[in-house]
């Protein structure tokens, strides 16, 4: 791991890449101390993120995919600054941000915003749409005058397909899809360059999901946004993502271009995930599946976290945790002892 930390050129999926990443994490770890049992001396620790190194390029849609408890939301929250990392470094445009005090960090917050999963929970029910949208501007751009705030709110409302008449209305008057548009408008109102979207469509109805995905695509084209898109739905990743990181129990297992990952999945866990997608043609649920269980993240085995479910696992896997490494044959990075 040390070699990655000291390397001047951060890891990139393809060789010869000189663009500075917009967001980069090096050796990022998040640990949660759990309450100790009163009879026990043990101090249980949950590893939500285990040495995560990702470099997100400007303008791309970087997808993070995995099952619940894999740390994908924690990664987004740590990058945006809602979760303090336990170790490691986070960079935004080459500037280290994880140890900044709140005053130095504040101007950066307007460039990094987040869209949350559930628009029923993320909007303040007692605040009308205008106040919800104006607050980030007033707080993060104090130099703006009242009329400038108003103009900025109106601009972002029309950009996200919201009607200007919504401004005086309260969240309960809107449907789920409309609320998510308002939540996206709130994230965009300070003109950020980077958006963390944490499962932005999974709480919505099927016919609404396409509307929101199309909106995110349009906004990216218009404003040159970079997305960190967190999801559990691989069909969305395949359609929407530039690159994708597959996470399992706090660790990145595979990182590749979306097309490469879907054409030639390398990690056994990635294959398991792809295999689990229901097909419209049917027939793929006919084969029997062995029950798999996520190991307890509190007492992680010392080897590969996937070893218990992995068909390729050997003693080496149970002893030593594989590091994310670059494959020679493709532009894929994979954390597995047995993949070439």
């Amino acid at each position, binding site marked *: 791991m040390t070699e990655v930390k000291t390397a001047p050129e951060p890891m990139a999926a393809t060789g010869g890449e000189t663009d500075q990443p917009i967001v980069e994490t090096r050796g990022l770890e998040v640990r949660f101390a759990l309450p100790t049992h009163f009879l026990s001396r043990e101090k249980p620790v949950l590893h939500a993120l285990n040495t995560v190194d990702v470099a997100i390029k400007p303008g791309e849609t970087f997808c993070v995919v995995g099952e619940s408890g894999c740390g994908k939301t924690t990664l987004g929250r740590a990058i945006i600054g809602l979760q303090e990392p336990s170790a490691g470094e986070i960079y935004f445009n080459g500037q280290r941000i994880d140890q900044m005090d709140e005053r130095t960090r504040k101007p950066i917050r307007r460039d990094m915003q987040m869209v949350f999963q559930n628009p029923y929970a993320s909007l303040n029910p007692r605040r009308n749409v205008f106040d919800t949208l104006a607050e980030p501007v007033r707080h993060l751009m104090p130099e703006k005058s009242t009329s400038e705030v108003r103009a900025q709110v109106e601009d972002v409302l029309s950009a996200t397909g919201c009607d200007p008449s919504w401004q005086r209305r309260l969240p309960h008057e809107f449907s789920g899809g409309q609320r998510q548009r308002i939540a996206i408008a709130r994230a965009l109102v300070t003109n950020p360059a980077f958006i963390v979207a944490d499962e932005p469509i999974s709480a919505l109805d099927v016919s609404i999901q396409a509307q929101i995905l*199309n909106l995110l695509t349009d906004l990216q084209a218009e404003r040159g946004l970079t997305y960190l898109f967190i999801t559990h739905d691989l069909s969305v990743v395949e359609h929407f993502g530039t690159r994708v990181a597959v996470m399992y129990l706090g660790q990145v297992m595979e990182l590749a271009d979306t097309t490469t990952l879907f054409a030639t999945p390398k990690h056994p866990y990635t294959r398991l995930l792809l295999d689990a997608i*229901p097909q419209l*043609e049917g027939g793929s649920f*006919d084969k029997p599946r*062995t029950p798999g269980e996520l190991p307890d993240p509190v007492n992680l085995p010392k080897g590969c976290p996937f070893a218990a479910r992995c068909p390729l696992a050997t003693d080496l896997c149970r002893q030593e945790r594989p590091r994310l490494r670059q494959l020679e044959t493709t532009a894929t990075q994979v954390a597995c002892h047995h993949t070439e």
Partner: protein
Amino acid sequence: MAMLEIDDLRVAFPRGKTDEIEALRGVSLRLEKGERLGVVGESGAGKSMLAFAILNLIAEPGRVSHGEVRFEGENLLDLSDRQIRSIRGNRISMIFQDPMVTLNPVLTIGQQMIETLKAHRRISRREAHRLSVEKLKMVAIPSAESRMDAYPHELSGGLRQRVVIAIALLTDPELIIADEPTTALDVTIQAEIMALILKLCRENDVALILITHDLGVVAEVTQKLMIMYAGKCVEAGDTQTIIGNPKHPYTSGLLQALPQKAERGTKLYQIPGSMPPITALPNGCPYHPRCPRATEECRAFMPDMKQGVACYHPLLSAEETV
């Protein structure tokens, strides 16, 4: 006679002192023995309402206001509470979305299974225990014998849903109604659970009504499909036929909006607007405000189900799209 025959089933809730509002607005279906039916729709379309109405489980102040549910020729809606208890949970089982809510947190798995069996069969405790372990093994729960003494919180989400399926199978039902059984679960666990439900239904010749919003899951598991919109069935028929050649503009729109159907990087087809709440339904076809094919006729009258579709202007061929 089909095993399950539902005719013009309606569920109503009171609005104000005298008025009523219909949440389920006339649904009919036929299900043969061992047949698997998918019911697909958005939230509020009435799919769970249908499941509850079949078992006469509509909670006050709602009521089944019209229609019949004939199971093996017997109208379930006419039965007394005592009579329907011999069918509900016995010949017809249910699997709900969230296993943590379905299972009783203060009873062990074994206690809950034995209790279920003893409620429906005159059997000894020992025999009930043996049967329960057998069913736990059937749903591939590792070390089934020792899991009998476990409490629900000691199991993972996937294992809990397996226990719920084992309980649903305990009484060897003829029909299982599964209401979003994998929505709360992860993708790999969903695949396992759905593959398991499919296998068990096939092997034991159990009929299934699978309620879900996921067309992919329905395509994998069911033979028949019913699409619901605003309390009505808008399209019904053979699953693969509907998916390959949808006739209703809503079904076609749903399928085209799926990311797996679209070319990478292109924009997805999007159905404009959203489903109206049942309290504010438009005249005529409830889909007409969102439908690109709507005409005056659609705005004035609700089309009847004809050849598996309730639409005045259905799509005719697989090439045609909305």
